Every structure is written in structure tokens, then in C-alpha cells.
């Protein structure tokens, strides 16, 4: 009897998980979604004072939990390094990867993973001191540009300046903190990185208003959640979680009014919220899955504004991430 106890102690460390079952069954048995996130990415995944992860990426994890389990709080966040993130997904350590991961052909086709959509259209941009009066990247000829070594940003930067026949001095740093410190100390006129990161770096300046992010974007960095290949049911759940949030925004359903919208006679809203037909059944989840997402997490506009947009410190304009009928390119297929 005693031996059994000790054995139990040992086995519980090894924490076996059942991989033979479908991901949804695993998630339901465990009663939580294991979501791989960034350990520290302002606006996308960061710990707040109360030990909660806040950010666009982590809200997507919560939405997936709301859809799959009916409870947005049933998420185990697993902070992952940029190198081990794919291994963690492949080996089943996490069910979904929502970690500012750029969707590229190579990753999508050769790593045994599938990207389910684009949760944030990112791209490399430039930040300049506002007193320089620069309006466009075309005026940056001869500028000293701070960037981080070994990143695609460095490569994009040299391509961009070469294509436009402009000269620049690269001032290379190791980490975002160092590069913003270099920018603040006047080592360079321009700081270049992914736009989402630039806004976070700008917040670290003593006076954020002294710098502006130029509107031009010189590279495509579509960020989105990814799942393991070979489980189409789970792939669909994650994919439609994002689509449901986009559809909810498009139909004007928000966290606040979702209960009133249950009585709506707009057929699109009725289908989305599970009042007409059951669109969860085919995915193996409840009929009110989209209702739970919007009720517990919010529509796309809400999670965007809360984490990176107008209600956050970053105040990033919607831009490409606006809805298709509102100047952006976020477009979700209809639910019917």
C-alpha cells in the first residue's frame, strides 16, 4: 500500500497525457486548454500584478477555452521560448500555440503544424524622434538606424534601403530594451522593428510623445495561432474561434450586449449565437460556443482595443487589422 503511494508520487511527476485521443477529448478530459504563449511580450502576452496573463494572444487562448469547454478561465498558459515553441506544439505539451508567431510558408509546411488564421497583421515599421519632422520613410536617407541583431528586421532593413537607393548606418543591439535605450540616448535617429514591438518600446521612453511611429510598413508579419497537423476537428475549433470573434464584431455583438442580442431576429446573429441551428455540433462542441466566446472574452474589436488598441497604453490604430468593410483586411467567412 505504501509502495503504491510512493509510486503515485513518482508517476505524478511524469504527468502522462493521452495523445492517442483527439486533442478535443484530451482537452475535455483535462478540463483545460494548454496554450503556448510568449513569456513577456507587451500587449500580446504579459503578466499583470495579479498573476494573470493579459494580451491579445492570451485572450485568444481564453476564447478557445470558452468555445471548447464553455469556460474562458480554463487555460493553462505555458510560457515558451521562441526556439522551443514548435517542439512544444509538436510533442503535445501544448494544444495550441498563440505566441506572436509569423505565418510563413516554411513553418506551415515543414514543421507539422497548421496556422489557423491571422489574429494580428504585423509588419516592420520605423519610429523616429518627433522633433526631426520626418513624415515618411522615404526621407530617411543617411539616417542612423537602431535595430536588433540576428532578426529578420535587420535583413528587411538592408533590403529596403538597398531597393530605395538610400544609405543608412546600422546601430545594432541585442535586445529590445537595449535598442530603445540607444534610441533614447541619441545613438540613432530611427528605431526599426515590428510595429507591435515599436509601440511597446515607445512606452519605455521617458516621454513617449517625443517619438512617432511612421505609417509605412516594409514587411509582412501575419501573426496567428497554430495547432498540430492531423487533427482537423481541433484545427476547426481554433480557426472558427477567431472567425467567431471577427463575425461578432461585424454584427455588432459585444460582451455588453450579447445577452440582448440573443433575442435578435437577424438570422446571422441567431446562427452565430446558436439560436438557429447548431454549428458547434460538427466541431464536437456546444451550440452556444460563439456566445460563450463573446460573453466571456469579447469580440475582436474588444480584445484588440483592450490589449493593443485605443483602450490600452499602446494606442495602435486598427490599420490592416480593421474589418474588411472598415478599411482593414480582417475578413471572416460567414457562419451558416
Amino acid at each position, binding site marked *: 500500500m505504501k509502495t503504491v503511494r510512493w509510486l503515485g508520487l513518482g508517476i505524478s511527476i*511524469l504527468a502522462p497525457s493521452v495523445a492517442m485521443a483527439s486533442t478535443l477529448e484530451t482537452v475535455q478530459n483535462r478540463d483545460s486548454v494548454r496554450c503556448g504563449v510568449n513569456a513577456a511580450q*507587451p500587449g500580446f502576452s504579459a*503578466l*499583470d*500584478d*495579479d498573476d494573470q496573463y493579459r494580451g491579445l494572444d492570451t485572450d485568444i487562448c481564453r476564447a478557445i477555452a470558452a468555445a471548447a469547454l464553455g469556460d474562458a478561465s480554463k487555460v493553462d498558459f505555458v510560457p515558451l*521560448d521562441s526556439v522551443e515553441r514548435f517542439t512544444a506544439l509538436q510533442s503535445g505539451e501544448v494544444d495550441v500555440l498563440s505566441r506572436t508567431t509569423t505565418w510563413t510558408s516554411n513553418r506551415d509546411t515543414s514543421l507539422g503544424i497548421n496556422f489557423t488564421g491571422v489574429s494580428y497583421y504585423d509588419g516592420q515599421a520605423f519610429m523616429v524622434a518627433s522633433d526631426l519632422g520626418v513624415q515618411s520613410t522615404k526621407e530617411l536617407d543617411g539616417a542612423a538606424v537602431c535595430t536588433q541583431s540576428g532578426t529578420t528586421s535587420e535583413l528587411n532593413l538592408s533590403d529596403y534601403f538597398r531597393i530605395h537607393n538610400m544609405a543608412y548606418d546600422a546601430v545594432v543591439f541585442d535586445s529590445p530594451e537595449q535598442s530603445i535605450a540607444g534610441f533614447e540616448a541619441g545613438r540613432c535617429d530611427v528605431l526599426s522593428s515590428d510595429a507591435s514591438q515599436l509601440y511597446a518600446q515607445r512606452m519605455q521612453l521617458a516621454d513617449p510623445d517625443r517619438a512617432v511611429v511612421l505609417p509605412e510598413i516594409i514587411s509582412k508579419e501575419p501573426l496567428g495561432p497554430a495547432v498540430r497537423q492531423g487533427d482537423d476537428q481541433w484545427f476547426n475549433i481554433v480557426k472558427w474561434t477567431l472567425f467567431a470573434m471577427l463575425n461578432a464584431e461585424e454584427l455588432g455583438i459585444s460582451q455588453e450586449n450579447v445577452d440582448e442580442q440573443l433575442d435578435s431576429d437577424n438570422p446571422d446573429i441567431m446562427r452565430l449565437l446558436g439560436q438557429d441551428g447548431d454549428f458547434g455540433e460538427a466541431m464536437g462542441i456546444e451550440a452556444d460556443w460563439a456566445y460563450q466566446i463573446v460573453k466571456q472574452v469579447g469580440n475582436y474589436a474588444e480584445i484588440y482595443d483592450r490589449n493593443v488598441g485605443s483602450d490600452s497604453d499602446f494606442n495602435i490604430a486598427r490599420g490592416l487589422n480593421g474589418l474588411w468593410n472598415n478599411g482593414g483586411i480582417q475578413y471572416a467567412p460567414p457562419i451558416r
Partner: protein
Amino acid sequence: MIHNQTVIEQRPAPSSAIGPLAWLRTNLFSDPINTIFTLIGLYVLYLLVVPTVQWAFINADWVGTTREDCSREGACWVFVNARFTQFIYGLYPRAEIWRANIVFAGFFTLIAWLAIPRLPFKRWVAVFALVGFPVVAYVLLHGGYFDLPRVPTHRWGGLMLTLLLATVGMVGALPIGIVLALGRRSNMPIVKSFCVVFIEFWRGVPLITVLFMASVMLPLFMPSGISVDRLVRALIGLTLFQSAYMAEVIRGGLQAIPKGQEEAAAALGMTYWKRMGLIVLPQALKMMIPGIVNTFISLFKDTTLVMIIGLFDLLGIVQAALADSRWLGFSLEGYVFAAFMFWIFCFSMSRYSQYLERKLNTGHKR
């Protein structure tokens, strides 16, 4: 005729020979060059200390809950204050923190008990510390037994995790290191070559590679569905890595013991283990205290590398906190806090080792 002997009464030494003024004179202002250097030194100190004190104490903000409570003229300790629980316990559920507190209290009590010479029952306390306490700590921290809710290891973090990693690493590495060191000096070819290969392998790879292998490669080799907890992976990697270094420190100590000691013990008819356990190791370990503590201190600092496999040790949780949009730009405060915590522990270890050296000194010190 009797001479009048005038007895000069004892007087204190003139103030020019003793006291702080004399000390200053002999040590700092003995000649012009010395005086110049002293003045330059004082000026540099002034340049360094005044802004630091102003930043860290005088202009610092201590009370509040948000970044708006910080004037940004000095340090914003509000940030460390708001995050303190997180820095100490990581993401350990707030309602269960009492469990971590019991473990902390037990941990420090045991250490104090073992370190303070007056307290009795050292042997039993040591046995409990090595055998009983780890089980108690595991049951309390991990839960799942006696109706304690389970707290998965990925929620452990902060100083708690740093201490856990360092303690397990030290307690595990020392005996393995002793065995490896003895094995390397053994005459048995298989034992010897195994130990040599083991030590040279682990010393030949950087710790960061070991951790990376454990977190990136190992899961790919495991049968699908079986995953070893990442904390356990890190602990095993860290312990094996440190035991190789420990083995070489101990081997150095063993070599310093004259061969005559072991031969004399053998002449008395002692077995190998008795010779080692009673004669050689007690003398060798005593001499190796600086080397062992050196390894311990470097292990304590190496634990920060677990950050790369997604564990939030003290430094990791500080860095994670720096990404919170509500606290962007307070990295200096965070790093100063982490450095201070690390300094406290490393410095204590260093002082304790010096105390041990003095206590165990039997006059062999040269």
C-alpha cells in the same frame, strides 16, 4: 643621598599616534601622493554615491499601486512593491501561498538549526532535512495529497523556484560529485572510465545546451503522449551538470591529502569505505570548502538560465513583469531588486563558508 625619583605617570598615547585621526594620517594622508589619491578617491566616491543614494532613496517613490504614483525622478519601488508576491512565489495561487510559506519557514529553520552550533540533535535534524523535508516540501508545494489542491509546477516561480533549483542542485550534486571523484581515482578500469567520460561529457557542454536539449530535443524522443515535467527536466539537467564540476573540485581536495594518510588507515586494517569515510574525505572536504561553496554560488546564479525553457525563476519573473504594459520602462528597478536578492543569498553563502573554515580549522592552514 637618595635621589628623588620622579615617576612619570602613565598617560594615554598622544592623539597623533592612535585613534581615528592617526589612522587617517598613516593610511590616507601619509605623504603628498597618498593625499592626492585619497582626495581623488573621495571625489569619485562622491560622484558615484550621491546620485545613487538620491535615485534609490531620496527621490524614490515607495508607496502606491500604479505607475502614476511614480514621479520618475528617482527609483520607482512601487513597481517592486506591487509585484513583490509575484517575485517571491511566481504564479503560485495566492490562496495557497501559506503552503509555500510553511516550506520557506521550514527551509530557513532547518538551515539555521544546522548552522547554529549551540542547537542540539544536529544528526537527526540533518537526516530530516535530507530525507523527510523534501517529501514534506513536495507534498505541500505540489499538492494532490491530503485534500490539498494540486499546483502544477509551471505555476511555481520567483525566488521560491530559484531556491528550489539551487537547493536540489546542491544537495544532489554533492554526493554524486563525491562518488564521481572517488570513481575517477579508482583502480577499477570500467568504473574509472565511466566516471571520466561522465565528467568530461558534462563539463564539455554549456549548461544552456543541456537545458535546451532537455526542453527541445528530449520531448521529441519520448514516446508520444508522455511528457516529463519541465521542472523535473531542468532539475535533472542542473544536478548532473553540477555534479561533474563538483567531482573535479572534490578530486582536487582528495589529491591534496598525503598518500600516507590512506596507507596508514589501510595498515590499520580499514576497508576502502572506512578509509575514505573516516580518514580521507573528512580532511579533504574541509580543505575544499572554498571550492565547493564557489561551485554552489555559481550554481545559484546559473539557475537563471532556466528562463530559456520557460520557467520563471527570480530573474525570469522580473523580466516577465517588465513586459506588463502598465509597468513598461521600470527595468532598472526590477534588475536592481533581482541583483540585491541574489547578492543576499550569495553573500550569505560566502560568509557561512568562511565561518565554517574558521570553525573547522585545526591548525593546518598555511
